[in-house]
Structure formats: C-alpha cells, structure tokens
C-alpha cells in the first residue's frame, strides 16, 4: 500500500536527508541501439551519469547528440520503441533495466518525474488541469478524490500559478505556454519524487518566461531537495542552473565537470567550442559557431567522433577515446586533455 504523501511543509529537513547517502542515479555503460534497415543503429554509446541527491546535473548537447536518449532509457520509453538497451541504470540502488513494466510504472511518476519540451501538447486537452494532476496523485499515493484535488491545487500554488483553485478547473487550451509548463512541473512533482528529469523544458517558450521557469526549478530544488537532470542545448541556461555540467556529442559523453571547473578550465575541445559559441563571453561579442555537423548515427567515424570538427586533432585521435578522469571530479574523452590549455569563460 503506497504511503500517504508527506506534507509539503517539511522540505528543508528532507532536503538535508536527501543530500546524505550515496548517489541517487547512477548510469553506467548505457548503450542504446535501434533496429535499422541495414542492421542496428547505435544512438548512445557507453554513456555514464551520476546524480547525487539534491544535485542539478546539466546535460548539454546539440540536436543529434543523443541527449534525450538517456532520459528515455531511464523511464523506460525505449521499451516501446523496440530499442536494445545495454548497461546499468541504478536508481537509489534499484536496477531499472531489470524491472518489469508494472514495477517500472510504480517508479515512473512516483519517484521520478519528467517534464517535456512542448508543454501545451503534453497536457490532455479533454480534461481539466486539476483533474490531471489529481489523477496522478490519486493513483500513486492512493488518495481519495477530495484529498487528491486539494493536493493538486496546493501543487499549482507551489509552482506559483496565480489563483490556483480557479485555474485547476481550466482546460489546457485556456493556459499560456509558460503556465502549461508550470502545470507540467507541478504534475511531475505531484508525488514528491526524488528525481526530476527536465528535457528542454523552456525551448518552446519566450525568453522571459524561460527565465522564470528556470528560477522556479532552482527554487524548487532548494525547497524540496530534489535532484534534477536538466537536458538542454543552451549552455547559458545550464550555466545558471546546474551544479555540474556534462556535455554529450554524437551519442557519447565527452566531458563532465563541476560548473566552476567546466567554465574556468574546460578539458574537451567541444566544450570549449560550446562555451565560445554561447555568446562571445569575454570575446568581444563575436559569434563563433563550431564548423561542421554532428555525424549521423549510421556514419560514425572511427576513433574520436569529434575529430572531424576539432581544431586540435592529431593522428592519435583516430584511436577510440575512452572516458577518463583527468582531474578530480573532471572527466574527459579527449586524448589531448592534459596537453591542451583550452579557453574557458566566467559564467
């Protein structure tokens, strides 16, 4: 029998509880491939992530980098798509890949919440916003109708939607994009999860609205102590929010470092490129795009995948590059990290 929801009134104590103990999410060796016309196509290769309780991890990459895939594998959406998933996804000690559908359903929505990119399309147009939140709460936490509805209104208030009791009776088409995203966040938080996965939540929104949503997420982390996996292509956003940044390229992790280190001394050329193109920070405002494009999954070069676009490539880059810890807490996939003095920025 699922336990009754703890009241939202004692977040600080739980936040402290949460930051203690081992990593909340540990992904190791995650490899995902899909059946293709000429054989399986690998979209993720040997991906590893670690998120501690209460930590915000920013997963940054261009389109085509495969940055959405790890989150899909975590919540099990890959099962429907006939993907082959290898590797380990450990959530609070439980191996998610070995759970059957029913067990995974108990985790999804209850202990892991997810927010998607197109908020207006992610809400059921036929039901009121409040009833959708209440339904999740009722299902996972076993609350009655009245209690579930009250909790829904409380959550809408938590994500700072004005006049929540009235808004809960609205249908999604009556809400703006920013408000829909708040509702999605409220729904993701409904059962008091330990991990929130946000997949490009602000990409479809105005810049001003974007800022407020980011502020909201940061505030919620402080208040509730939840961990966040924040996926984005916008390094600037990640800079504002993340405790730790991980960059992905062509289906692989290429760098992972705490925020300060990432920006002060990046260790992978791709990260350097991203920092430079993030808007001429300390560079006189010139735009620097990284030349070239992400290779298609079917046509991956051997060895280092970034080789063809890298300004520092050498012969040895034709060898496959393993992920290694080049400094404490800083991981890289570049052969030349020790040699290179890459330029960072002050975020």
């Amino acid at each position, binding site marked *: 029998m699922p336990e009754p929801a703890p009241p939202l009134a004692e977040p600080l104590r739980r936040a402290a509880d949460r930051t203690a103990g081992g990593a909340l999410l540990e992904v190791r060796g995650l490899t995902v491939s899909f059946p293709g016309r000429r054989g399986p196509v690998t979209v993720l290769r040997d991906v590893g992530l670690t998120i501690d309780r209460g930590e915000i991890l920013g997963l940054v990459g261009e389109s085509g980098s495969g940055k959405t895939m790890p989150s899909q594998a975590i919540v099990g*959406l890959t099962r429907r798509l006939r993907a082959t998933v290898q590797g380990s996804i450990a959530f609070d000690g439980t191996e998610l890949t070995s759970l059957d559908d029913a067990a995974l359903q108990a*985790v*999804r929505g209850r202990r892991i919440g997810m927010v*998607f990119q197109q908020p207006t399309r992610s*809400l*059921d147009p*036929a039901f009121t916003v409040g009833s959708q939140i209440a*339904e999740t709460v009722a*299902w996972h936490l076993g609350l009655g109708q009245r209690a579930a509805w009250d909790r829904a209104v409380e959550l809408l208030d938590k994500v700072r939607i004005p006049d929540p009791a009235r808004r809960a009776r609205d*249908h999604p088409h009556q809400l703006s994009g920013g408000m829909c995203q708040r509702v999605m966040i409220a729904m993701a938080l409904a059962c008091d999860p330990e991990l929130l996965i946000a997949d490009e939540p602000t990409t479809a929104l105005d810049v001003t609205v974007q800022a407020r949503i980011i502020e909201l997420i940061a505030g919620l982390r402080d208040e509730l102590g939840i961990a966040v996996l924040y996926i984005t292509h916008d390094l600037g956003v990640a800079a504002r929010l993340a405790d730790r940044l991980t960059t992905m390229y062509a289906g692989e992790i290429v760098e992972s470092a705490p925020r300060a280190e990432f920006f002060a001394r990046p260790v992978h050329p791709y990260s350097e490129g991203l920092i430079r193109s993030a808007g001429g920070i300390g560079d006189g405002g010139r735009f620097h795009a990284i030349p070239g494009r992400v290779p298609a999954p079917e046509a991956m070069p051997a060895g280092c995948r970034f080789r063809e676009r890298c300004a520092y490539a050498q012969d040895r880059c034709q060898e496959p590059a393993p992920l290694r810890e080049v400094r404490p807490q800083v991981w890289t996939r570049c052969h030349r990290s020790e040699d290179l003095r890459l330029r960072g920025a002050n975020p």
Partner: protein
Amino acid sequence: MLGRSAGAAVRLRRAGAHGTARRLGREVLWAPFTLALVALLVFVLMDLAPGDAATSIAGDQGDPELVESIRADLHLDQPLWSRYGRWVGDAAQGDLGTSLVSHRSVVSSVGSVFPATASLVAIGLVFALILAFVLGVLPVYLESRSFDRLASILSAVAISMPPVWLALLLTSTLAIRFEVFPALGYVGLTDDPWQWFRHLVLPGFTVAMVPAGELARQVRGSLLDVLGTDYSVAQQVRGLPRRSVVLRHGLKNAAIPVVTVLGARIGAMVGSTVIIERIFVINGMGELAVRSVGSRDVPVVLGIVVLGTLVVLVSNLLVDSSQAFFNPRSAS
C-alpha cells in the same frame, strides 16, 4: 417564417459567432429551412413524374371524370407553388396532410409506425457501439497483434456484409434452425419489454453490422493517433495504468472525430430500415415508405422524408452538443 429563420442564421454567422451554444443555435435555425428545401425537392420530383396519385387511386378503369374529380379534391390540379405553399403552411402548424390512400392523417400514420423504427435504430446503435468497442478499442488496449489482425479482418467483413444476406442468414440459422429468436414481427415496448427486445435482436444486429465495421475502423485509427500524441506519452511516463491511458484519456479524445459523424451514421441506419423492415416484417417507417411509394401516396412519402430528415438533424444536434464534452477546445 423560413426567410426569417434563414436571415437570423446568416446574421449570427456574420457576427463572428463561435462557441457551442451559438453553433447549436445556428443549426436549430437552419433546420426548418433544410426541411422545407428537402420537401420542395420531393414536390418537384413528384411533379415531374408521369401520372399522379389520382390516377393510381382511380385505378385502370377510372373514367376521366372520376380522375378529374379526385384530382380536384386533392388539389392536385393546382400549380406547384400553390400546393407547396399550402403544404408548408400546414406543416408549420403540425399538419402534414392526409394520406391519399388510407385517409388517415399523415401525422397519425407516420406517428404510429415511428416507434418501431425508432426502437430498431436505437437497438442497432447500441449493438453497433458494442461491436465497435470490441473490434476497434479492445485490440488497441490488449496490444495483441493476432487479435488486432483478426479484428481488422472482421471489421472489413462487417463493412462488406450485404444487409439482405445477413438478415436471411441470421433468420435461417438463429430463428428457423435453432429457434433462439423470432424470425419476424415487432412487439411494442410497453406491451412486453422482453418480447420487444427479443424481436429486435436479429434485425438490430443486421442494422448494426455495417456501421459497426465503420465505427470500429475509425475509432481504432483515431485511438492509435491519440496514443501517439505527446500528452498520451506523458501519461504513460507518469506511470498511469494502461486502463486509464487508453480507456479513459485515449477514448475520450479519440471519440471526437467518431462522434462528429455519428449523426450521419444514424441517418444511414434509418435508411437501411427500408430493406430490413421488409425482411423482418416490421411495420415501421421504412416499410410504410415502400408501400407509399408503390401507391404514389405523396403526402405520406413527404411526411416520411421530412421525419427521417428531422431524425438526422436532431441526431446531429445532439452529437454537436456533446462536442463540448469531448473536445473542450470547441466550446470557447
């Protein structure tokens, strides 16, 4: 009167009206115009035909004077507009004329056979919805490839099944060979509810078959579309049970395009009663229509056409008003 209703409807549209209430209002206002137009077309057609009711009443040996006097009695010698105008005027007051054959008022003739047809169509609709659920929704819910294949084949067969043959097959097996249901006849609901139902099973099933196949295919397609939307995936990611994702959220959204044409489907079912009532010897509207056509009983034919159209219009109205439930976006 008609001009006024059409004018009001046009004015509503120009006012940029949208929203369920206004849309329904518009439909209601156009309805009498539609009925009048349909009646006019039938009038015109009847006129184009050689001979008329007077000749068929008088029979072959009718001498010309008799035919003429019958004709004058029935006002058949008046010009078209005059007859039509009189009909419309009477109809607006609820008088649809008198049967040229039975001399009963049309309202009473048609009214007395209406319950049988209404029962038949109602039962048919229920059967069709149940069948459509089994053949269209269940395969999606159960996610069984083989059941889905089977259901698809059965739906295709259902659509292709000629009602005449189905009726005869059902009768010969279930009524004659196995005597499970009666082969023909109709019993009023108020007279004996159980017999009423028993007598309607075979004809109801026949009426339901083709619409069931269409509905099944349509709802299956619509449901699959819905299950691929962002919000449906989001629901699955939230860990909601399949029962809820498919049967609660999925069906409600999938019903939108299906319900939109339900009115027309009901109309088709009413039309099919023409054949089916004859086979199962049910004295309903369809049967009366066939008889009246044979005897060129214009007022009755008109009355049935008008009533049939009215049924379709009312169905469309009911269906449209339910749109607000299924598709809240349309209500704004």
